């Protein structure tokens, strides 16, 4: 979909565990599209910017490749094209768009973009659409609705209230726009510490 160059993982799946006594779980990390984005704050040329719809994008035609944003991102969500990325005809045939980062180019930073081209057509981003378990929900906060690949739609506010949802490293004040729900086996009612 994104024709991501090898070595980059726009959504990276970590295998984490809370402690050695609990089972491991998968932790997918897209770009968090922070509302207080450290990467945007430090960019010297305004190549990284936050759109009014909440998405953080990088203008690869402006980026000077200083990689300050990579140093600033606590989620390590950003990747750099250290050499000339291998190209395909499909990729090169498309006009450059800041919404897709395609065609990929050397010496600039890229990352997960939340697929604005797809959401504009009413679809959910590629990662959510591809998830066979329907584990990834996407939606508009103001519509208060999120949808997964199985077509299940929930109220965002209810999910956040009842599901002990948290945002990763939210104590850093980055105001990420990605929420994580605890594993279903570890529901909010079972664990005393997680009362929403």
């Amino acid at each position, binding site marked *: 979909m994104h024709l991501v160059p090898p*070595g*980059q*993982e726009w959504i*990276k799946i*970590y295998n984490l565990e809370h402690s050695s006594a609990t089972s491991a779980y998968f932790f997918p*990390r897209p770009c968090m599209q922070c509302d207080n984005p*450290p990467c945007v*704050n*430090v*960019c*010297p*040329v*305004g*190549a990284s910017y936050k759109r009014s719809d909440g998405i953080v994008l990088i203008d690869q035609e*402006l*980026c*000077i*490749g*200083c*990689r*300050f944003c*990579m*140093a*600033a991102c*606590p*989620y*390590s969500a*950003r*990747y*750099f*094209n*250290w*050499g*000339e990325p291998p190209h395909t005809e499909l990729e090169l045939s498309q006009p450059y768009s800041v919404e897709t980062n395609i065609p990929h180019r*050397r*010496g*600039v*930073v890229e990352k997960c973009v939340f697929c604005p081209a797809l959401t504009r057509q009413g679809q959910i981003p590629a990662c959510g659409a591809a998830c066979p378990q329907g584990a990834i929900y996407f939606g508009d906060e103001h519509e208060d609705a999120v949808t997964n690949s199985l077509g299940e739609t929930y109220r965002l506010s209810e999910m956040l209230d009842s599901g002990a949802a948290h945002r990763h*490293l939210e104590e*850093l004040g*980055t105001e990420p726009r990605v929420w994580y729900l605890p594993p279903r086996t570890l529901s909010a009612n079972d664990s005393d510490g997680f009362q929403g």
Partner: protein
Amino acid sequence: MILMVSKDKKGRVMSTRAVNNTMHQASAGTALSEHEYALLKPVMEWGRGTYLVLAICSTVGIFGLYAYATQLREGLVVTGMRDQVSWGLYITNFVFFIGISHVGALLSSILRLTGAKWRYPITRMAEAITFAALLFGALMPLLDLGRPERIANLISHGRLQSPILWDILSITTYLVGSSIFLYLPLIPDLALMRDKLVNVPGWRRWLYRVLAMGWKARPEQHERLEHSMNTMAVLILPIAIMVHTVVSWIFAMTLRPGWNSTIFGPYFVAGALASGAASVVLAMAVFRRMYHLETYITPLHFRNMAALVLVLDLVYLYFNLAEYATAAYKMELGERALLMELFTGRLAPVFWFTQVVGLIVPAILLMLPSIGMLARARTVPWLRPIPLGAGGAVLAVAALGASRFLPAQNSNIATYLLWAGIAGAGLFALSLLPRLQARPVACAVIASGLIVLQAWLKRYIIVVPVLQHPYLSSHEPALGIGLYQPTWVEWGITAGAMAGFVMVYFLFSRLFPIVSVWETEQRESIQEIPVPVRHAHTPAAASPEV
């Protein structure tokens, strides 16, 4: 300025060689006093050694250019940097050079404002370090860019909210300011060279004439010069402090464990001042030896500089304690892996080298000449270096051998032997102390060398390990991608920059007198200036031993 052939104004009889050379100059229509001749000789006579130094430096510099050409062609993929550790040697060098550059402001400004008269022979070599170090320091982030051809975006699209813009503004301001500061006291000497150096190539006579700006040494010119220099001395100080503060803020303005620290500004400024002052001691030693400046750069200068370096070294040590002890006590989750790597892990040798060999040992060396007890220790036979030194060396060799050859299951024994070896080596070093005490200049130079080495290594372990320990990895750490191993391109560019720095500095000393001629002229004798440092039972105060 006055014709003096057989005796200089201090009434000393000149050496035969100097007389001959002075006669030679005189026959060409100009005359130099012994004082002027002594300081202008490196400018007038470029021996074979000069060209040799320039040739070596340019060779290394050209290799650095070749490495950069490779990087331009292939992209940053030829470096060891990857998504996890996305800054490496270039940023290390950047912080190192900017740190070294602080010496100019320190010596010229603080010593000028406090009226320390002993500064005159060393201010120019300090300011020239500032100039050369800033040139290469400012270059480093540019070499680090993935898209250097878009450098103009920093002007056309620059965002003042970004610490990089703060760096650009403060470094360019500091470069301009310190160039002016270097240039102003050079004017009378430029005029001297314009008037008296007739045998140098035409382009240099043109250079001196243009740069001298019609200096005639008139009283009102002197007055204006003094006024400008005082103004610059006041202006340059806050600029210098801000430069290194915003350099540190590149790191401290991020949320990374290890960089996310409130004391980074003063911590970096202290480190910069220590490494800068230490580098000027090295420059003093080199120029004294190379240009035979023993009359101008005396043990007094080394002693005063040693006191300055000692204070700055201890201040920096204090900041290190403040930075690491507070984090180490709490062992917060985010910082734990980083701290453990520094304290006991892969980078522990480098970390403890910077703390012990790079800061504590220099402090001992710098204090050494003032410790009276040691002089008595010299008379005790068994404390002499040979028995103790031999014992220590044997221990060290035994321990090294043991740690290498003992099988892995006996690693306990190996550890004990290693510690014994360290103790032996320590004893050996201890037995050297009385020896070193008699040579305060050597102490100052060794200590300064260690501090400068420490400065570079410290910058490395501030930049790289933090990136190796993020909250989340960009890649699987198991694959080893998160580790950083600099490539030949980065080492080549680093070596090239160091060589370039040496070349610019050396060339400066061959084009302009590295010790100010006019500022050292009026002083009767440098030795007679009262010593501000209290000095214990040192017999070496007057001996120019190195």
